[in-house]
């Protein structure tokens, strides 16, 4: 009989304790977001900040790519396909160049006067032969033509966030395909990339790129596609 009453007590009491826990939560604010609505598509901003270094969609800045195929090799699921050829000896798509990333987000491509390894310790830097991204032949033409022009500009080192040296490109890529439907987002390819041109987008567009057709998820980063587009930085070449 003691156990009987004790059981009733226990049952009622624990139920009431549980109900106290839930009713407290009843008056707590929501933790969920109304995903697409509290989410500014125009500004490409989400209610939740996507942290820096998030492993989103793969993107290859083809101008920096030297076609080393290391990413193709390391990929555990073989989602990267690279075909290409070496140019005949002595030819190159462009010379060694420097990409200067400014703190306001702009990039200046040109050749730094002086030793580009030590340039960050100096006060200012002068960049000559500032160029834009155009088709390969046009680049070569322009480079040839601009020798006498010597378009130069000087920046103070405070403005500059980092300087990347681009090797002379002697490799012509026919095909640089990444099948994002196979990708497992391990990020190994971005780590082995020597020029750090293969990156994973840590922005909203690196996450929201769903499509209705599987073939739309094969992104072709090869040159021709890239240069046919305008100078916009963030276009991923797709059909």
């Amino acid at each position, binding site marked *: 009989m003691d156990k009987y009453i*004790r059981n009733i007590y226990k049952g009622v009491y624990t*139920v009431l304790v549980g*109900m106290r826990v839930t*009713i407290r*939560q009843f008056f707590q604010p*929501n933790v969920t977001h*109304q995903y697409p*609505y509290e989410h500014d598509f125009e500004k490409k901003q989400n209610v939740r900040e996507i942290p820096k270094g998030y492993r989103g969609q793969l993107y290859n800045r083809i101008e920096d790519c030297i076609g080393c195929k290391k990413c193709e090799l390391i990929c555990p699921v073989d989602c990267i396909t690279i075909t290409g050829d070496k140019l005949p000896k002595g030819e190159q798509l462009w010379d060694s160049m420097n990409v200067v990333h400014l703190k306001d987000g702009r990039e200046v491509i040109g050749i730094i006067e002086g030793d580009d390894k030590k340039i960050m310790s100096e006060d200012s830097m002068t960049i000559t032969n500032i160029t834009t991204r155009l088709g390969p032949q046009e680049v070569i033409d322009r480079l040839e033509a601009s020798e006498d022009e010597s378009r130069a500009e000087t920046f103070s080192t405070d403005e500059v966030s980092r300087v990347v040296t681009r090797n002379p490109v002697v490799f012509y890529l026919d095909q640089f395909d990444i099948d994002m439907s196979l990708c497992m987002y391990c990020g190994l390819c971005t780590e082995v990339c020597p020029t750090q041109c293969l990156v994973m987008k840590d922005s909203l567009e690196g996450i929201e790129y769903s499509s209705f057709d599987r073939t739309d998820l094969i992104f072709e980063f090869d040159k021709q596609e890239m240069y046919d587009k305008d100078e916009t930085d963030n276009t991923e070449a797709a059909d």
Partner: protein
Amino acid sequence: MPEIFSEGFFPNINLQDETNWATDFVRDVIIPRLPEAVAGHFPVELGTVLVMVAFAGIFVAVVPLLPLVLVLAERKVAARFQNRTGPMRVGPWGTLQTLADGIKLIFKEDYIPPQGDKLLFLLAPYIIFACSFAVFAAIPFGDGIPIPGDFNIGIFYIMAISSVIVMGVIMAGWSSNSKWSLLGSLRSAAQIVSYEIPLGLSILTVVMLVESLGMQQIVASQDGGIFTWLIFRTPFTFIAFFIFFISSIAEVNRTPFDLPEAESEIVAGFHTEYSGMRFALFFIAEYANMFAVSAIGVTLFLGGWQGVLPGYDFLGGFPGFVIKTLGLVFLMMWLRWTLPRLRVDQLMNLCWKYFIPISFFNILGTGVWGLIFRHDDVWSIGISCAIIYVGLISAYAVAGRSLARKPEPQPS
């Protein structure tokens, strides 16, 4: 006790009650407005039937709106308990979500399992639907609102009708030709049949005090404010109310007694194989049932449409009735989103070892109480409330002490 025998056990029950409101309505309202040529020959019986059908039509049309609201309320309440927002997309704050769901369900394919029993499969949802709505016929919604089925045996009728639901459940489970459905329906049968007993016994305590089975009489007997509500009339009805409430949760198959449709065990139980509008009928019936048992609970124990204070209309009338009912519905939801589910044998244990003995004890107690206090007066109600109060306080104290002695056990 000779006068009891001379009056009969239930003097208020009059089985030869010939007049009903529909006949009155025909005589008093319709016939005077008819052309004289017709009025003289107008068949009152036919008019009665027609009026009743019309009222029934209104009910059938209006009452399904209730589940629409309740489903949304359930989802919103559940969401609040879980720090979510619930449906937000259809309509402002998702208020039209159930409507959208309903429309979707109507357009869905109505699939009938080929190896199943087709007739029973088609019939089952209608039986459940019809029964759960027939219950509404006897619920006194408010003062002056006509009850379609204002019988002198109202509560008896409700018990009888709601028991038929189990047949629909079994039919659904059997005819689906699915083993999970069969398990679910048999669980449901055992559960509903078992829990009918404490439910009925708890109702009996009320009937003993009021000496009537009619819903209106039960409500009328609680007209003296909150302390004349039957829950406070005797300490035993206080216990009976909780037994009634828990048993009715079991009756409508809600957590913690949702074994017939336990989604984590037998997927969805008896309505696994149903789709489209037939599934929606189960769904609507479930929520209608939920409202119905809450309304019965309010009628029997919480004063029906009577207000809190005698003479004032606070929490009284139709709005008061609905508020009280929704309060019980909210309590059901709160329990549902707090508690885990019982196992089948524990469910039976709870019923047969706890509820039924306590219910019998209640009946005994109520009988004795009725012998001691022949008529409800200030004294009897005061003593009752005092006992309830002292009981609750001492229970709280004992529980607090026993739990202070044994704090949260730690196996490590």
